[in-house]
């Protein structure tokens, strides 16, 4: 997988413990927005490098008939989401 680290717009659900689950996200490619539904989350991991907490989600989606694996990253300190790796 390659590191992309592109900011994305996300719709996520939060459980009672405040743990988020991304449902779908929008990414602009060549100024053309694409919406991708997150179909499956394989696992999530937490890191606090440099004291900054970030949650990484390993996800799967079908894009144009192909099963794609990618990682999303959420930064609770700023509320921002990124497409981390494809």
């Amino acid at each position, binding site marked *: 997988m390659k*590191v992309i*680290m592109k900011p994305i717009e996300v719709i996520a659900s939060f459980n009672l413990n405040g743990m988020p689950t991304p449902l779908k996200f929008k990414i602009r490619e060549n100024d053309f927005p694409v919406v991708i539904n997150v179909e499956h989350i394989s696992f999530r991991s937490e890191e606090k*490098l*440099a*004291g900054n907490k*970030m949650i990484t989600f390993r996800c799967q989606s079908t894009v144009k008939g192909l099963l794609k694996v990618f990682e999303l990253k959420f930064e609770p300190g700023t509320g921002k989401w990124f497409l981390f790796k494809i």
Partner: protein
Amino acid sequence: MSRRLIFHVDANSAYLSWEAVRRLQHGDKLDLRTVPAVVGGNPETRHGIVLTKSIPAKKYGIVTGESVFSARAKCPELIIVPPDYYLYMQCSKAFGDMLREYSPLVEQYSIDEYFLDYTGMAKALGDPLATAYRLKEQIKQELGFTVNVGISSNKFLAKMGAELKKPDMVHTLFPEEMPYKMWPLPVEKLFGVGRATAPKLKERGILTIGDLASADPRHLKLFLKSYGYLLWNFANGRDESPVRPNRRVLIKGIGNSATIPFDVTDRQTARLVLLSLVENVGARLRRAEYLAGLVSVSIRNNKFYSYSHQRKLSTPTDSTNKIHETACRLFNEIWHQEPIRHLGVRVAELCTNSLLQTNIFEENIEKQRAMDRAVDEIRSRYGLKSVMRASFLHSGLNCVAGGTVTEEEYPVMSSLL
């Protein structure tokens, strides 16, 4: 009582590795630690000194404290990143929290250094050396930066131990190891020997720490006064200072200074710069609930020559206007009309503000205080630039200058262990 066990944990090239880790976390492909890079000021606003360097930058002969300009001359492809004190505080806090998993007695000694008292912890966590390695690895894994750990029976030796060889190392420096680990080092490596003391010792033939340890303390006292005894004790590895959790330095004075982006040549601009400095000093003074009895002003001119002047106030005050007025008067008395590069204001002789002595000749002081209070409150809620004095309009100056973060939050290293 059994021997104490103290760890000194020091982040390697702290500012730079923290910046590097943040960049990696945000998807940057380049690790700043692997290329010549420095954390330094912005040369355009003339805040141009090297604060921290990477190890590859060190190979070009770049030293901490030199100007960014001369560093770039040594290495044209040098990467310069601006400092970010909020990031450093965040890293430092996470660093401290991790250390507290290893002992309840942890002292923050500076932004990137901690002391940890491991005395008696061996029963719970095991061998100190093994724990130190575990601690070092845990910080590297979870926080992403490397540290040096020094282990000894007091704070001084632990600190000397952590400095031995960097980066990412664990060293022990127990008193019995001093003759071969510490005494052969040059005397300026000793904690407390700096550029003022080192020449004095060298002139007298004391070249290594071992020379100092075997010197006659009465002889040292002749030219170093009581500090000679302290250094002699240090050189012999004697130090009894305890690990103090929640170290808080007693505030003796509050100061603020700034290097101005351009040379100041007229009185009017200088008054404005002083005002922007005093705005910050005044607000901090009031927040700490103190009154100041002394104001001092310092000037550094374009030839890097510095001088200062101070005066006691007839009655202690916390008013921005009154401090500014005194600062301007002091400034007028000493300024030689040459271009100014750097200005500073400092207040001292602090006393509590629960009782305020008024001056018979003074204007309505209650009104003045209410005004200051209102401005402080607005600024704390809506930001520093939410209210500003009209005199700063179109002046090109910041209405509140200097002070990245207050020193209550940002621990600076002290000369006391």
